[in-house]
């Protein structure tokens, strides 16, 4: 808890360290190392801050003003926004088409409209006719044709 509090004060308190924190740092090697790292990092950040930013080139403001009045810039901005809007429209249309196709496919593979379901609910004769459309009738006829006539001998 003391280490946690010390580290919080170190991070939030800048360079000033209260006596209690100093005392803890003298007795806790881990927090002392933490403090040292933080000081190193702050030093590094100060050095980063000292780096001079690039100066605006002469005529930068005029160039900005000219670019604003340049119709082509406005055109480009409009074009850009149109391209973005167009892209969004295409994505939306593709998503809608995909959903539509999925919507059409999913019921076709379900229990209501599938061929197997139709067969299950049909009458046995219809099933037989569907399964053996060629041989069922002819076999019956053949039986009658080749059966020995009763009482011919």
């Amino acid at each position, binding site marked *: 808890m003391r280490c946690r509090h010390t580290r919080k004060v170190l991070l939030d308190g800048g360079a000033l360290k209260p006596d209690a924190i100093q005392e803890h740092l003298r007795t806790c090697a881990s927090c002392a190392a933490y403090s040292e*790292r933080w000081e190193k990092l702050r030093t590094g950040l100060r050095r980063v801050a000292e780096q001079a930013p690039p100066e605006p080139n002469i005529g930068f403001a*005029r160039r900005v003003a000219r670019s604003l009045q340049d119709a082509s810039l406005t055109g480009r901005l409009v074009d850009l926004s149109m391209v973005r809007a167009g892209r969004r429209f295409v994505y939306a249309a593709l998503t809608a088409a995909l959903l539509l196709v999925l919507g059409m496919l999913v019921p076709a593979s379900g229990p209501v409209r599938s061929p197997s379901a139709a067969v299950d609910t049909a009458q046995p004769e219809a099933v037989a006719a569907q399964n053996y459309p060629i041989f069922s009738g002819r076999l019956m006829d053949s039986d009658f044709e080749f059966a020995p006539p009763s009482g011919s001998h």
Partner: protein
Amino acid sequence: MATSARQDATELDWIRRTQRGDGEAYAFLVERYQRRVFNLVYRMVGRREEVEEIAQEIFVKAFLAANGYHFDASFATWLMRIAINHCYDRLRRRRASRLTYFSEMSAETEQAVVGGSESPVASGERLQLDLENRDLAGKLLERAPPEDRVILTLKELEDLSVEEIANLLQLKPSTVKVRLHRARKRMLADFQRWDRR
């Protein structure tokens, strides 16, 4: 005070003309604030070669949004908010296209960090150590998540107070304090991974 009032009146005139689409008046505003914007962009983005392009984008954006300025904050604050948001978006896009930070760390920096443990620290090498710390801190800043980078830049590099940051980011000071603490903590944890000296 009289000069300041006169300047403010002049600036108000430029702003009103800008809001009517006067690019010439806007050029005066750009002239006045270009250094601040360049400075902020450089601190935020950290890449010298990108600063002018980003600054130009910010000024164009501000011109197109000029009618949204209602004089409830100073023009500078309003412009800086646009600049911060623009840089934030840029950082997010850059981060999204990045693989890992450590792959971006230069061989020189890695060498400096790893090799540092082997070389004795003499007083004459203090500058070298400072430069290494600067290089590492800069790289860690570049690696930081965009929201951390914005708040760390404003505090550690721009040296703004918590209240000023809160005003710029339109947050409560307490929120800024919490975010700043977390950002520092994360950065320090990252620093620890590389600081083997």
